[in-house]
């Protein structure tokens, strides 16, 4: 693999960028692998990467029905933070955030990780108290966050209308090392590193069936033929129910549409990420100058990757109260992704009733931030049979009443 460096950039600039090599191979699938990962989104690719990097397992194929990062990984608003309330969440999200800090260097691929700071506005007394509680919890968990007052919010984000008529800003939970990264680059960077370790990253090849014998997984059926494997990881986000159906079990997951939109580009006016959970909207400004806006999820099962117009209206209506300058911006694009929601709004990293088959799903509206940590934990789970980071997130927790309840803590798409 040719390494990226400042010298490579200069060299290619001088020869019209004709010398860049392919970032990953596109091989034909083999008849068998030790381990197959279904889904080449961020979580599937990161799982494969850490299987190789941390556990020396490289006889691996990552198979996707579409193109790399064509699922939620390439459709999200890229907020990265780890200020969760519950210990199990804080552990895996903070591991993930910490890995993002040096991931560009490790993968030798610019992920444009930008720890610009994330603030979650408190706009009701209830929310203020909730965030004070999270601040204390984060201090115990070793996650750096701070509750800041309205004056500091105004200093960090001058475009906010602090004394909004309905929802004045009372303060915010501030995570200075939260931020954003470039979503496609995360998928591409991991794919490049996987390919470099000799793994197969196979696109445009839908998995259509799961084969098993005596309760143990033996392989999969795909559009490009049968593939045998000893271990199988299902990492398909919104399509988890469909794949679980093929494997013969059900999941506590429902798939709904979540949308986002971006405005026309404007001059730099917002250099932090802001989430306004009471009014259901969040916003950041991309490096191109577009305001990147997200809101709540639709309330019913849906695979259309579009979403309903009235949700956009709600989100934008709420945001212009807090950011009046937005009212004059034209919106450029809108899109949707199919997110996998669990009852407690926490993910599932788990063994399944089918031996040798593991599942990683349920990241719902907030799994981009978790990609490195989730891949790390999932790889350990698949290689060793257990992982401290994944422990709380097993399928059994529903049956046993050990929820990791972030729905109360966050109460919003994130």
């Amino acid at each position, binding site marked *: 693999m040719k390494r990226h460096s400042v010298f490579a950039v200069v060299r290619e600039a001088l020869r019209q960028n004709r010398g860049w090599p392919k970032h990953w191979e596109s091989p034909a699938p083999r008849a068998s692998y030790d381990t197959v990962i279904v889904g080449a989104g961020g979580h599937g690719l990161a799982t494969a990467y850490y299987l190789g990097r941390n556990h020396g397992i490289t006889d691996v194929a990552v198979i996707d029905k579409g193109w790399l990062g064509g699922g939620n990984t390439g459709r999200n608003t890229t907020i990265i933070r780890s200020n969760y309330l519950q210990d199990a969440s804080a552990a895996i999200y903070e591991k993930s955030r910490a890995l993002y800090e040096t991931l560009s260097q490790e993968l030798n691929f610019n992920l444009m990780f930008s720890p610009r700071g994330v603030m979650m506005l408190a706009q009701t007394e209830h929310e203020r108290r909730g965030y004070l509680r999270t601040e204390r919890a984060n201090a115990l968990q070793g996650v750096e966050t701070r509750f800041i007052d309205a004056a500091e919010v105004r200093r960090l984000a001058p475009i906010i209308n602090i004394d909004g008529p309905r929802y004045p800003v009372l303060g915010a939970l501030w995570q200075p090392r939260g931020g954003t990264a470039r979503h496609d680059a995360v998928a591409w960077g991991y794919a490049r590193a996987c390919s470099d370790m000799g793994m197969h990253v196979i696109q445009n090849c839908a998995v*259509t*069936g*799961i*084969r*098993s014998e005596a309760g143990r997984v033996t392989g999969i*059926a795909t559009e490009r033929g049968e593939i045998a494997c000893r271990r199988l990881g299902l990492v398909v986000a919104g*399509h*988890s*129910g*469909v794949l679980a*159906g*093929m494997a*013969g079990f*059900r*999941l*506590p*997951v*429902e*798939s709904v549409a979540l949308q986002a939109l971006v405005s026309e580009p404007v001059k730099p006016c917002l250099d932090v990420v802001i989430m306004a959970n009471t009014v259901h909207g969040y916003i950041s400004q991309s490096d191109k100058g577009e305001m990147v806006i997200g809101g709540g999820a639709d*309330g*019913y*099962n*849906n*695979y*259309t990757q579009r979403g*309903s*117009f*009235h949700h956009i209206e709600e989100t934008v209506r709420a945001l212009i109260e807090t950011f009046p300058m937005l009212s004059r911006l034209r919106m450029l694009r809108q899109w949707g992704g199919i997110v996998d929601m669990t*009852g407690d709004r926490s993910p599932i990293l788990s063994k399944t009733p089918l031996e040798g088959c593991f599942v990683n799903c349920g990241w719902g509206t907030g799994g981009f931030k978790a990609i490195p940590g989730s891949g790390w934990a999932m790889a350990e789970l698949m290689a060793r049979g257990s992982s401290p980071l994944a422990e709380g997130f097993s399928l059994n927790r*529903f*049956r046993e009443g050990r929820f990791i309840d972030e729905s109360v803590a966050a109460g919003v798409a994130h």
Partner: protein
Amino acid sequence: MLILTCPHCGVAAEETEFAPGGQAHLQRHGPGSSDDAFEAYMFLRDNPRGVHFERWRHAYGCGKWFIAARCTVTLEVFATYPAQCLEPPPEAVAAIRARRPDWQPAGGDAASGKEPA
């Protein structure tokens, strides 16, 4: 955007007039049931890419609950019927069959392209 027809008052309206209520035809399991049955009732859900049965309430209309049989891929609504029905009535099944000849009434999983193991 879904367009639903309330089977109680006959009004056809956009989804904003209704409130979604999750998977329909769940059989309640309470005290005395096995752990498996309770887990399935409480947490496990059909999540088909295709025909799905779902509870809705005519929140800004007559206020009553009903069930919609619809497609999660195309947003086509095949039929709506009162929430008192314990299973899809024959007219609803016929309406689904007319549009999805391969559909199996065994439940959402079968409709999601599950292959015989």
